[in-house]
């Protein structure tokens, strides 16, 4: 069907991951930070799928399901924290989050 070797999708995964990482490092807005994490998780998922393709093993897709699972759980918590942070600090600046320890709980 496809003559493609596993190198190409693996490279794609690496590139996506690095884009996510750049986003994580560069952006101060926590929304983008969360999004960058999602990008990186997704890249990791892609790598699992690639591995599943390479060995014809369903385990790759199963791991991808777990990655989605993890992403969902993580995002749920991340978003709720985002909301609370926004209420507390009235900003979404990640660099300002270290002021949390000065705020009385």
């Amino acid at each position: 069907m496809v003559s493609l070797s596993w190198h190409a999708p693996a490279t794609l995964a690496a590139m996506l991951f690095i884009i996510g990482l750049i986003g994580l490092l560069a952006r101060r807005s926590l929304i983008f930070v969360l999004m960058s994490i999602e990008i990186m998780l997704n890249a990791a998922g892609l790598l699992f799928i690639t591995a599943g393709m390479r060995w014809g093993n369903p385990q790759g897709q199963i791991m991808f399901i777990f990655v989605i699972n993890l992403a969902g759980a993580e995002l749920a918590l991340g978003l709720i924290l985002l909301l609370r942070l926004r209420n507390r600090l009235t900003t979404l600046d990640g660099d300002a989050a270290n002021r949390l320890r000065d705020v009385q709980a």
Partner: protein
Amino acid sequence: MSLSGYDIVFYAASAFALLTTAIAITRANPLYGLLNFVLSLLGMAVVFYTLGAPFAAALEVIVYAGAIMVLFLFVVMMLRLDRTAIARESGWLTSSIWIIPILSGAALAGELLYGLLGSTGPAGAHHIVSPQAVGLKLFTTDLAAVELASMLLLAGLIGAYHLGRPARARD
């Protein structure tokens, strides 16, 4: 190595995904960023399909793009980001903040590509893994992992609920 139709689709989808992802992280307005990310996910779904994982492709569209990202969108909308917030956001996006991330990203990319392309292992066969195979495996041998995943979701649920309550009620 000649390019088959599938290969063309793969490369096109890959390029699309990379492009939209790159756009996503550079937007000042989070909504645009997220929408671009959804597009990138759709591109990824196509990539999955070409890699012989139709089930994963479906999940990517339905669960990731459809459920998780929509949740994300809702929350961002709930934040009611006004014009000043977006203006501040674009104020942060100076070119200087990209220098170090891109440099280090390039370094990492160089390393990874060197490792990947330099690997001389066999390319290996190309298999299609059917949803049936995935399901069988998932609910027989990997049942414990499924349970663990459900625990994780539960923890996420409870955590979100707990954190979401008003501050007074939590103390």
